[in-house]
């Protein structure tokens, strides 16, 4: 606490307008080791009870923030676990949906669902490319043989 703030609280205390919370904060401040003599006198006036209450409140705050940190750490760990599990479930779920039997073709916007026809069209497309590759590779080998 800054000196100006402490002196403001002292003035309020002496005027009898300090709240109980302000008295406790003031008590913690004036009972530190490195304070002026006149502040120590204020500490005596505030009494040990006020100091005791202030110290107790400080301990409770410390425990609460410690508990909050532990809770936050657990929440983060739980979030990470949930997201990881969700991700695994999503990707493994995709494999499950990929095992569904789908065979569909579209020709200029018209849909064909005859499985044998779809399969023939797909096979034709793939074989075409592989045959092109085979022919190109065979031509290359022929060039080497020449």
């Amino acid at each position, binding site marked *: 606490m800054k000196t100006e703030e402490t002196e403001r609280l002292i003035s309020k205390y002496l005027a009898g307008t300090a709240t109980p919370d302000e008295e406790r904060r003031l008590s913690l401040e004036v009972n530190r080791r490195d304070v002026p003599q006149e502040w120590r006198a204020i500490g005596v006036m505030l009494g040990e009870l006020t100091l005791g209450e202030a110290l107790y409140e400080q301990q409770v705050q410390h425990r609460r923030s410690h508990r909050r940190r532990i809770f*936050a750490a657990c*929440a*983060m760990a739980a*979030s*990470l676990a949930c*997201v990881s599990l*969700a*991700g*695994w479930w999503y*990707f*493994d779920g995709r*494999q499950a*949906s*990929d*095992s*569904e*039997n*789908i*065979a*569909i*073709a*579209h*020709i*200029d*916007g018209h849909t064909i669902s005859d*499985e044998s026809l*779809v*399969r023939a*069209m*797909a*096979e034709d*497309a*793939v*074989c*075409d*490319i*592989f*045959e*092109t*590759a*085979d022919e*190109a*590779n065979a031509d290359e080998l022929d060039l080497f043989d020449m």
Partner: protein
Amino acid sequence: MKPTLTIVLLLFATLMLRAQEGLHVGEVFEGKVAKTTTETTQTGEPLRKYGLTKLRTWKTTVPDSLRNKIEALVNQDYEERDRKEEEVDREVRDGHIYYSIFRLGSRRTELSIGGDTNFKVWRHYLCYQCKVNTEQRSLYDITLVFLEGENLTLDKLKKNFKRK
């Protein structure tokens, strides 16, 4: 506040990972490049004999402007291909791809529960072919194929798709 922010950041990261799964040629398959196309989509049992879990094919005939656009997308995916376990079969003629078959990044899942590990690797391949249309020499016949299979290799694919 902090736990909420952490959850939001983690969810955002998950979304980012999902977005990276997409291919540049994805917009071709989504019909954003050419309208008159012949496409097929298959998953599941029909593909078992090929060792595949997913197969998409796309064919169209386009002028050279669209051919160049599609080729650029294929090249972008080619640049981002799996280089660790590279599988490529490709030929370029007169500065344009004649055909290109290459492995894309793999997807892998591993989950260990109670000492048992469930381990799967899905491999993806992209195949592209561009030939001059025999009836109209100013047009190009393009074929684009996406394949996915567990523990797939190019040799297995070529064997499974040999015309009898």
